[in-house]
């Protein structure tokens, strides 16, 4: 088995169809783009992208999101397993990671395996078939860095941080809709994710204790991933965002207020860039 495993080789059965960020960004349609069919009022909650029960497409959007969570959990499982495998136990320098960090990664693999189990059960409950929606492999890509510290920053802090935001929203949705399972399950998964993010925050600090340059490289990578995972501003503090930044849970997971503010700024930037790209694309197609 190779030391490092490329995202293109992720093993899936024939039900899954994979895509990546570049392909997703090439889709220039935007929710609400020029629609005459919806009668939504600008002031209603459904005029935002946020998942709330009062959307006309609430259950379908929840199904799509849950499937996205499920494939994300599969990739998180694979990523944690790879980090437990790819680096030898050592003092944390070079290609090694502390033995205790390897153990944490194995523990995370178990947690993520449970999350796949939970989201597969929830998907069935919601009437979604496995592989019904395409799988974006961007999550595993962040787990492919050859520097374990970058993986901690990209996966545990950025990716799992996003999981906290998404689960918080799903939990709220389940609660509002009165779904007896959704809120219960998301609550449990949130507890695990907060643990994983905290794990990332603690290890990042510890491993780079005497290497400030490596730490700043890792934090820089985290910002890149954070912006990427913002999905063109889908997450953020604004009303246009699909997902709110879950500030309280992030605080529990070891993020400082400044760090959360930085993520919010990155989300805003990503949203502005995405809007500009769509405008440019529309202008170009109108000119043709």
């Amino acid at each position, binding site marked *: 088995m190779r030391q490092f495993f490329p995202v293109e080789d992720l093993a899936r059965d024939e039900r899954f169809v994979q*895509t990546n960020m570049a392909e997703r960004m090439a889709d220039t349609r935007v929710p609400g783009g*020029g629609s005459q069919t919806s009668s939504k009022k600008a002031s209603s909650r459904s005029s935002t992208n946020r998942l709330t029960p009062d959307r006309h497409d609430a259950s379908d959007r929840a199904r799509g999101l849950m499937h996205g969570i499920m494939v994300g959990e599969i990739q998180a499982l694979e990523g944690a397993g790879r980090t437990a495998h790819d680096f030898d136990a050592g003092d944390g320098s070079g290609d090694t990671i502390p033995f205790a960090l390897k153990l944490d990664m194995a523990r995370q693999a178990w947690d993520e395996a449970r999350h796949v189990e939970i989201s597969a059960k929830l998907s069935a409950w*919601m*009437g979604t078939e496995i592989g019904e929606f395409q799988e974006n492999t961007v999550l595993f890509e962040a787990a492919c860095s050859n520097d374990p510290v970058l993986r901690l920053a990209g996966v545990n802090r950025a990716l799992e941080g996003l999981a906290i935001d998404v689960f918080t929203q799903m939990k709220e949705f389940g609660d509002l809709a009165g779904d007896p399972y959704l809120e219960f399950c998301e609550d449990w998964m949130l507890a695990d994710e907060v643990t994983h993010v905290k794990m990332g925050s603690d290890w990042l600090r510890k491993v780079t204790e005497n290497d400030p340059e490596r730490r700043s490289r890792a934090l820089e990578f985290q910002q890149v991933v954070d912006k990427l995972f913002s999905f063109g501003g889908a997450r953020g503090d604004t009303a246009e965002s699909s997902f709110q930044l879950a500030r309280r849970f992030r605080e529990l997971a070891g993020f400082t207020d400044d760090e959360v503010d930085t993520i919010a700024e990155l989300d805003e930037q990503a949203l502005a860039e995405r809007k500009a790209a769509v405008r440019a694309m529309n202008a170009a197609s109108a000119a043709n």
Partner: protein
Amino acid sequence: MASETLAAAVIGKVTVTPAEFRLVAFDAHELAALVAELAEQFGVANPIHLIVDEATPLAKLSAELDATSSDAPLTIRAESGALENMKQLTTFGRERAAESLGRMLLRARDRMRDDFADAPPDLELTLAQNAAWDAYCAGRLARRGHRVVQQRWRYNYRNRFGFTDRADEAFERLWAADDLGFAEMVAAP
């Protein structure tokens, strides 16, 4: 919507707008053929105009019938997400499209019944009325051989009527029904 001004694709009594898609890889003629096939299967003889909004990936659908006779024009509006292949976004998904358009044709056929005279226009239906009608349509589609995941519609119904045994029983009745009036269909569980 700018694309509505483009020429339309026509097959028999079915017209599809736009004739050419820019943001999604749909073929207007393929769409028109599918609508014609479904209309025949469900006995909808009306002239049909399908207007696709390709600018949004959302999946809202509505059907509008000018009168209740079989020669009254029927307009179906669909956001592109209702017709695409969810495994390969922006490409056409025949199964999903058949299910989406099938529901709209069944709605139109329902609207031709006297006991649907009080039904509000599609865009004025409440979320609960929509969920009930979707369950009623999806059950009929399944019995006509279309690939429909019952649990999806049960979940949708539960989201509107509650996660209760009563709601589940009402859903089962809707799913199995073939001959309901509007009031009966939307009655609370």
